[in-house]
């Protein structure tokens, strides 16, 4: 069966190029979510009755599927969150909030997403630590060389996107981690744009934390995962306190927490979300993430080649090796381009894509972004190109 037929949203006559924002869901993921709500809808970690036991089993099974997806050493290292944003906030507040002190340094880049910058800004105000930015090279990429230049004896943590959401460059995480660890520096990875698109092996990368979202990998919204090495997660202060995460507490204020992973998952979890995300992990495994990556890189090459053949288009990240392409029609505000493309049912994102300090580097604030996924096709790109080619009439159309 053609994989496109497995996605109900792909039968709606739209060309969807905003997969960096969120992805469409295959029927098998939708079915898994519905199955939970229709056939065994109970709370997890609670009951002594069958449907609750089934819920428990399916929820923990989903955790195992995610563990396998990223090759974590144990399921206890997989914490369900509401998404990459929550995962990053948990790490910054719950782990680094406890250990960073005055003058300690955090290394970031200017192309990070807001959720890998703003939590650090807040922590710096509270703990009086400092942020330093790793220089980007002429293609807005991170090199090990520039990481080494930015590191000082005060550096305690490096926090980077694996793939950035505007430039789309794949960072050499493994090399950075190896170097960082040799100096006792921890590495946090924002995997929101990488885990859905390529094989990510946390043991191979040896990163200390990895946060990612379900909905960007064919799963449902409102669910994500924070991976952390067991000992690090184990020393983390729970972000939320409440039911499901404590063993006992007394009226005098003594509390005993549960062990991982429950300790970091207070309250009723997003059960349907976790089960759906587990199904999405299965789906990506069947398709094979190496093949997905290979396909997307080829599709991107085709897109960039076609875009470059047009005189009226400027491409900002020609050399990236992910499915993300940032461009503008020359002299047209990105949002006007997006509105024009929408007239042809082509969905692209316009704006700064939550990377609001990247403008310091790109010298342009707003771009149109195409972010491809394995279900996009050359035919869709051809349609886009013909619409962009004939964009002289853009204002006649949108005004």
């Amino acid at each position, binding site marked *: 069966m053609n994989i496109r037929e497995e996605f109900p949203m792909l039968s709606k006559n739209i060309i969807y190029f905003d997969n960096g924002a969120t992805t469409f869901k295959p029927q098998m993921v939708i079915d898994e979510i519905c199955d939970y709500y229709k056939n065994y809808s109970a709370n997890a970690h609670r009951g002594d009755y069958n449907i609750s036991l089934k819920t428990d089993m399916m929820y923990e099974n989903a955790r195992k599927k995610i563990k396998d997806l990223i090759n974590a050493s144990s399921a206890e290292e997989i914490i369900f969150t509401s998404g990459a944003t929550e995962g990053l906030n948990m790490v910054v507040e719950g782990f680094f909030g406890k250990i960073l002190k005055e003058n300690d340094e955090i290394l970031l880049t200017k192309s990070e997403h807001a959720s890998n910058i703003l939590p650090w800004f807040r922590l710096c105000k509270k703990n009086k630590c400092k942020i330093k930015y790793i220089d980007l090279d002429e293609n807005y990429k991170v090199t090990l060389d520039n990481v080494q230049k930015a590191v000082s004896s005060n550096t305690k943590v490096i926090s980077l996107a694996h793939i950035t959401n505007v430039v789309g460059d794949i960072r050499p995480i493994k090399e950075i981690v190896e170097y960082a660890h040799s100096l006792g520096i921890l590495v946090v990875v924002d995997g929101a744009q990488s885990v859905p698109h390529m094989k990510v092996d946390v043991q191979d990368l040896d990163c200390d934390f990895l946060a990612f979202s379900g909905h960007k990998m064919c799963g449902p919204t409102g669910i994500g995962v924070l991976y952390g090495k067991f000992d690090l997660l184990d020393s983390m202060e729970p972000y939320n306190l409440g039911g499901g995460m404590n063993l006992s507490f007394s009226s005098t204020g003594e509390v005993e927490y549960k062990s991982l992973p429950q300790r970091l998952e207070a309250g009723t979890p997003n059960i349907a979300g976790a089960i759906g995300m587990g199904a999405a992990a299965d789906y990506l495994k069947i398709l094979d993430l190496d093949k997905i990556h290979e396909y997307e890189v080829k599709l991107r090459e085709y897109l960039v080649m076609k875009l470059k053949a047009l005189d009226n288009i400027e491409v900002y990240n020609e050399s990236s090796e992910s499915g993300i392409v940032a461009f503008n029609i020359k002299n047209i*505000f*990105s*949002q*006007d381009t997006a*509105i024009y493309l929408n007239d042809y049912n082509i969905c692209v994102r*316009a*704006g*700064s894509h939550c990377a609001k300090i990247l403008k310091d580097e790109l010298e342009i*604030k*707003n771009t149109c972004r195409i972010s491809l996924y394995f279900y996009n096709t050359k035919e869709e790109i051809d349609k886009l190109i013909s619409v962009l080619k004939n964009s002289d009439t853009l*204002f*006649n159309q*949108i*005004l």
Partner: protein
Amino acid sequence: MDANLRRSIILDNYQNPINRGLIDEEGYIKVNANNESCIDELNFIIKIKDNIIEDIRFDGEACAIATSAASVMIKALIHKNVDEALNIINNYENMINEKNYDSKILGEANAYDEIYKQPNRKKCALLSWSNLKNALEQFKKNN
């Protein structure tokens, strides 16, 4: 309004907006206009003397609708007194929101009379006008 005329007013004000570029001079009130639902970001400065709007200038990045609307607004409000300006703004807002309005006092701003057909563009058309309204109301309170 005729579709071609409407389009040429918007396009002309987008491509050659009036008073673009801020100046650093005393006596101006600063107004920021950021569209929360999209990426339009415009900054205005206004000079009011003896209750008359002597000058409005703007800068920033925004789409064709938002940028042109800023230019059209400046032309409509400059040299008006604060109450006249507020009256024009109120009528413009009514037009965008499909309420009764007096088209005679809106001039070029009538070019936005069909924006209501594209609900996601209403905020673009209102961005500068609503922020200027807030600034003028604040000015009235303070003076």
